[in-house]
């Protein structure tokens, strides 16, 4: 059980939830959240947006029943929290690009705070949010609204590229990596439906070029070239 510290509504669909929790985690890791009794049945995986010694923040987009309930939380409410789960982003040095599409920007605030030299690219379909906050953790924040954020980036300018966003965007990242024939290490963070979150159920298992991988424990962060998108 964890207590809600605050739940800020950034717009009608996006919220930033802060909860009491001292379990921390690495950038790119996620928690399983449950803010309801019986419906929906399962907890929901949400990335760490930011964390301190005694609190974690989650940035979420309302897409269905579970996230709708997150949106309704008020300060003082309780929720169940398990984690941190997943491999998280690798420790990297050199020049890094962090590319978030839509709610896929969520893990990159904490990441930008930790990497020394990371440029942040944020792609929004309409109203952008949290841009000022991102500017406080990265000296280079590029925002695109309604276009394709990928077009503004050359992977070859970077040693490492990490992308998170809708599957279409991640496919485009893979294609771009191939097209640019870049030396940059390109990573993607996947979002598969999960049940257990701990590697026990194989609900999140997906095809990779080296065989099947579990997104929850082998990932969610993978080398882009290894993923087999269908």
């Amino acid at each position: 059980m964890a207590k809600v510290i605050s739940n800020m509504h950034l717009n009608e669909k996006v919220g930033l939830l802060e909860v009491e929790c001292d379990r921390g985690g690495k950038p790119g890791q996620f928690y399983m959240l449950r803010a309801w009794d019986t419906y929906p049945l399962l907890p929901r995986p949400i990335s760490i947006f930011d964390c301190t010694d005694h609190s974690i923040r989650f940035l979420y987009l309302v897409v269905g029943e579970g996230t709708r309930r997150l949106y309704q939380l008020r300060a003082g409410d309780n929720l169940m929290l398990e984690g941190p789960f997943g491999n998280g982003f690798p420790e990297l040095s050199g020049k890094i690009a962090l590319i978030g599409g839509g709610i896929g920007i969520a893990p990159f605030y904490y990441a930008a705070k930790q990497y020394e030299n990371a440029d942040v690219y944020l792609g929004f379909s309409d109203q952008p949010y949290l841009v000022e906050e991102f500017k406080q953790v990265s000296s280079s924040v590029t925002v695109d609204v309604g276009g394709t954020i990928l077009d503004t980036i050359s992977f070859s300018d970077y040693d490492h590229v990490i992308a998170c966003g809708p599957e279409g965007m991640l496919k485009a990242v893979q294609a771009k990596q191939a097209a640019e024939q870049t030396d940059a290490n390109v990573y993607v963070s996947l979002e598969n439906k999960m049940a257990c979150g701990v590697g026990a159920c194989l609900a999140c298992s997906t095809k990779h070029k080296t065989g099947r991988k579990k997104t929850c424990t082998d990932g969610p962060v993978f080398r882009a070239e290894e993923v087999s998108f269908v």
Partner: protein
Amino acid sequence: MIDLSCNIAGISFKNPIVMASGTFGFGREYSGFYDINKLGGFVGKGLTLQPKEGNNGTRMAETAAGMMNSIGLENPGIHAFLTQESAYWQSLDTVRIVNLGGGTLEDYRAGAELIQEHEQRIRKDTGRSSIDMIELNISCPNVKEGGMAFGIQTDAARHVVRAVRNKTSLPLIVKLSPGAENLAEMAIMCEHEGADALSLINTISAMKIDIRKRKSVFEHGYAGLSGPAIKPIALRMVHQVAHAVTLPIIGMGGITTADDVIEFIMAGADAVQVGTANFINLRTGPDLIEGVTAWMEQEGVQSLDEIRGIIS
């Protein structure tokens, strides 16, 4: 002194809480969260002779108070399992059950043989066991190759049970499908063929349609329904089977609370398995053990024998 223990086919369980196949990996996955030796036991992910990639596309979807899965028996194959997990399973102090699946009669037979040989050798070499029981899964609804047919018709199932029984000296649990044409008849057949226990129910064949895409959500059309939604159906089936045979019964289907466990025991189950509830709360195992203990204390029940099968 409250006694939670039970004995099934000569194997003694610390308590009646056993984690269900396919929801508990091979045990390791939950061992970081609590001491899994507290459990009565657990069943490993379903194994087949050959490694299996499982199904493509969506593997999981939620329904009202339930979930559907179409994992398609993804597993490393029996050989890899035995190689990779034996030492870990040997180190455990809880009942370890292998779940054996298969596409053909020959798969089942060869799989059982492999397990038998391995276990005999390991017991001889180390003086310690790694596997306590086999749970024979004739009912996985996700495998195209015919896994389902065995679970439906008594005569088809008979061949599998007989083949596996002939190949193993380990206590044999047969796991029944809710899709069986005649569940009582199926149970009686298993008893005749020398099964040591029965477990039920596996998931119920179900469907979900993505009306936007105008397609079934799952690659193979149907998928298996589990979770609280199916509990009343599972309980009825356990009660039915408990009245049809004298074999010990491990009941499951939607169990999430201690009260659910008690219901199954009262319906005639010797122990229970818990699947989907692990996903709802990953500490469900210890929570249930605590809950059942608390209930017994409160009701002045010393041993579950006092209430087992109390419902006529």
